[in-house]
């Protein structure tokens, strides 16, 4: 049980900057997700916390101890790796028992603790097997059990679900969430999957090019993105970003269509962000703008309409009973309460007053 403090943490390899002077305070018992595309520095940040990578500059504090010079084994963290990192020559029991054995836990203590951990991840019947004989999801559980068999100060999870198939990922995600609420141990979780981030996190740190773009609750990140990158990265489908300008309180697309009133001062260039869910699909002539359908997709629980909007394509989400044909014209109405404006030059959010 401990908080983690990263003070001006930097990691450089030659000229390449992995993590650029970042500070982060992770609360005790918090579940923090580091989210970003590959190469954004999220895994590097985690590996520095684990002690597997030495920071170029900055401090790492776990609890009230600066751990920069501590070996991984002395940091009292447990880590789940993307490829599980199981020991193929040991049985599942020995795999889970390893952290206890190597730290000199009395033999009598080991067995009940391993069995308890195995029970928590529903592996009891596989304890005598070797990792080779398990499926991907079961191996993932072994890696989890090995992490929870001790009570470490911090859990570190490096894309633990990314090697699982889509269905299993959803199940394991729920199990992880359940387990983390139960254990209440400070957790840092790295992923590039925004749904994992949204569902698991207490707070999400969205990273890009070694810099944290936004730190906040999933709600906050989704509904109040700090910049164009966060807006485009979070949400599925991604937020639509429409180029245009602001003229006397109206957003005007590059094509010259006066689209929607947003207020604020005039701007020669602006990007309007709107989520697929905030675009209502109506009949032709009944929305803010008429557009033709480029593609119509039925995902089962909803429908997705990719529409041609001048030179751009935009995705709107429709009711699951909606049926349209390619080439048809529909009217799209934007929800004025959930519009975002960005500066196209630096990607910064332009706040729309009190709207």
């Amino acid at each position, binding site marked *: 049980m401990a908080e983690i403090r990263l003070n001006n943490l930097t990691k450089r390899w030659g000229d390449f900057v992995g993590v650029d002077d970042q500070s982060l305070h992770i609360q005790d018992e918090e579940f923090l997700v580091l989210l970003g595309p590959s190469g954004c520095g999220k895994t590097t940040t985690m590996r520095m916390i684990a002690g*597997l990578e030495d920071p170029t500059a900055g401090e790492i504090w776990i609890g009230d101890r600066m751990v920069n010079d501590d070996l*991984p084994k002395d940091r009292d963290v447990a880590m789940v790796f993307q490829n599980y990192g199981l*020991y193929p020559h040991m049985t599942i029991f020995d795999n889970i028992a390893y952290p206890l054995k190597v730290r000199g836990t009395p033999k009598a203590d080991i067995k009940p603790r391993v069995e308890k951990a195995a029970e928590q991840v529903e592996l009891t019947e596989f304890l005598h097997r070797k990792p080779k004989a398990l499926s991907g999801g079961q191996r993932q559980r072994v890696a989890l059990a090995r992490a929870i068999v001790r009570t470490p100060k911090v859990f570190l999870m490096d894309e633990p679900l990314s090697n699982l198939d889509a269905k299993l990922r959803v199940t394991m995600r729920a199990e992880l969430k359940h387990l983390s609420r139960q254990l209440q141990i400070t957790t840092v979780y790295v992923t590039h999957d925004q749904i994992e981030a949204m569902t698991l996190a207490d707070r999400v740190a969205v990273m890009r090019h070694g810099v944290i773009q936004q730190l906040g609750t999933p709600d906050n990140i989704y509904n109040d993105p700090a910049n164009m990158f966060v807006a485009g990265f979070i949400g599925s489908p991604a937020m639509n970003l429409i180029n245009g300008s602001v003229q006397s309180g109206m957003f005007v697309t590059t094509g010259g269509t006066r689209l929607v009133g947003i207020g604020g001062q005039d701007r020669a260039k602006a990007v309007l962000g709107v989520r697929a869910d905030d675009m209502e699909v109506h009949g032709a002539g009944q929305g803010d703008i008429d557009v033709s359908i480029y593609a119509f997709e039925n995902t089962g629980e909803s429908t997705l309409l990719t529409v041609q909007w001048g030179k751009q394509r935009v995705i709107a989400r429709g009711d699951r009973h909606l049926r349209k044909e390619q080439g048809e014209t529909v009217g799209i109405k934007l929800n004025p309460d959930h519009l975002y404006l960005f500066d196209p030059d630096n990607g910064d959010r332009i706040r729309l007053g009190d709207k």
Partner: protein
Amino acid sequence: MTEQSTPEIELSAAQSAEFWTGKRKQRFWRAIQAILILIAAFIMLIPIIWIFLAAFKSHVEVYQLRLFFTPTFENFGTVFEDPYDLGSKLFNSTIVAFVTVIIAIPIATMAAYSFSRFTLKFETTILVVILATQFVPAVVIILPFFIMFRDLGLLDTRIGLIMVNLAIVMPFAIWMIKGFIDGIPMDTEEAAMVDGSSRLQVIKNIVLPMAAPGLVTASIFCFILAWNEFLFALFLTNREATTLPIGLALFRGEEGDLWNLLSAAGIIIMLPMFVLALAIRKYFVQGMTMGAVR
């Protein structure tokens, strides 16, 4: 999971009419392949078969290419007797080969681990230089070795031979074992470190067991190299420390080549190889493939 039946592959009329197509053709070529492999194997085995037969023949029978004869074990006795005294050479060979392996493998493992896992200064250069030592023809360095060993009093000693063999074997061992350690995922080692192991514990508990097939393969390889080493043993030993391959040369006497004795001694040299190969066949194949495909 529901069971799915594989749909039967229907042959078109043209396909089924023509005999030499598809699976049939494939099967035919497979048979040809097998026959060719057998022939190739036989050709390669002829010398060994010949040696096996000759070893059980008498001096007179050797030059007759008869497959059926009354086998005699006399040759195996004679080679251990006085003028030849293969026993002491067998002893020397065994000591030299075993000690070489016992010293070489741990050192090579440590070196290989360092090369594999740490970023060292001039790493590539060092690795290439290690391998490059093997590009020097042995004949070139035999004289310096001879003079050095003479001055150090290492001529005709087993210790001297072991040192030479180590020099021969180490580069191969380092490269081979490095290949195997490269194949162990970094994740596994890092997991062990986070789980609470020191670097040495990681090596002992994780790396060594996982690299075991590779270590066995490398050991055998080194053993074979040391066991068969001829040139250095020929120049650097005389009486006391001569090894089996040198012993073979004794069977060229005034009465010509004593092929029956030569063959018997040859079998004695080959025997440990066969036994070793059989005993660790499983590891060997596993080791070979593991190193190859990671």
